[in-house]
């Protein structure tokens, strides 16, 4: 059954970002279900990111985290480094019905960054059934 998780959500312009872009509300939580801590923030849908990136400032509020396999990344400066991944549950909030959400647990884990903006990368986008960007209305849709 197709679940239209996000429907007619307008692009938004965030502080410090030059253009309007698709953002979803996300809730991050520890992988362990017994841990009740959660953090809510907006993250940008980014097909240019191979892996989901979470601002460290939000992730650190969850307490000790589960780490995942280290991975090799090449930064924009060309430098290649080995970094740890973190295992989190990332739930995308439905729109306009924000009472629903769809949880994801990226198999490769996520990266933490010093940015204030989270990026939902291809590891999550790639398992959605359909993501549609409507350039005419400046809205987007996510089907799961």
């Amino acid at each position: 059954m197709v679940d239209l998780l996000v429907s007619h959500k307008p692009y938004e312009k965030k502080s410090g970002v030059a253009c309007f872009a698709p953002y979803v509300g996300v809730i991050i939580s520890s992988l362990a279900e017994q841990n009740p801590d959660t953090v809510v923030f907006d993250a940008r849908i980014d097909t240019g990111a191979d892996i989901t990136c979470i601002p460290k400032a939000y992730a650190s509020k969850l307490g000790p985290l589960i780490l995942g396999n280290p991975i090799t990344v090449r930064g924009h400066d060309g430098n290649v480094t080995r970094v740890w991944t973190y295992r989190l549950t990332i739930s995308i909030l439905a729109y306009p019905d924000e009472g629903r959400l769809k949880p994801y647990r990226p198999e490769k884990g996520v990266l933490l960054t010093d940015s204030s903006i989270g990026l939902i990368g291809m590891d999550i986008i790639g398992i959605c059934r359909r993501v549609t960007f409507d350039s005419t209305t400046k809205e987007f849709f996510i089907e799961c």
Partner: protein
Amino acid sequence: MDSEETPRKMVDNALKGFRTNTNPDDRLSYAWIISQLIEDTTDAELYELAAVVAVEEDPRLRGEICYAISRSRRPQLVNFIKGMAQDKNQYVRKEALTAINELNEINNVKLSVIEPLVDTVNELRVMLIDLQKDIKNIQNNIVKPISSDYGSANIDGIAMNDRTKCWETYLRNEKELLRDHKGEFVAIYNAKIVGVRPSDLELANIIHDNYGAVEAFIYKIEEEDEEPIQMPSYMGNIVEI
């Protein structure tokens, strides 16, 4: 004209040849030269060579490094050859035991101390595999080590932090895990395997039930993707907690 080949220069050339050459016969020739000029080889160079050779496929190279270390008369390198005393190849085991005996005579170390150290030796062997990968990558300018990977603790002269120890535990068991549980997840806490399950969620709950809210590891059991992940410029810098 400065054409004289000093022993030091010969060591430099041999090390360079060893690092850049992939042919086992050539590498063995370079190892022979280094063995013969071992007094002109520094501890760091010998450490590096031993770390690389310890995981070489060619048993002649592993045997040769045992011989080189025994000739070096540097007992601090005995840990490298302790692991090779359990090598799958008989020639390597023989060379390793001969070298250990040589070093024991120097240091008056009893062979009986080796048995209780088997666990440590096995850990060192796997750590060397990881180090060898890093050394190769660094030599090829592919990877720059980040400081947090090689942080705090110090085991037999090689720095490791808790995270690296957990990763080392995974690598030590990787072969068996890939054989028996490929595609599943393994949980590691305090450098010990806590469980293997098809679900990372189940493992996270097991960790929380047994140890509370702690930093632990859940690794996907899979062959590592050699291709680096590209990071867009606007995403900021990758950081760790």
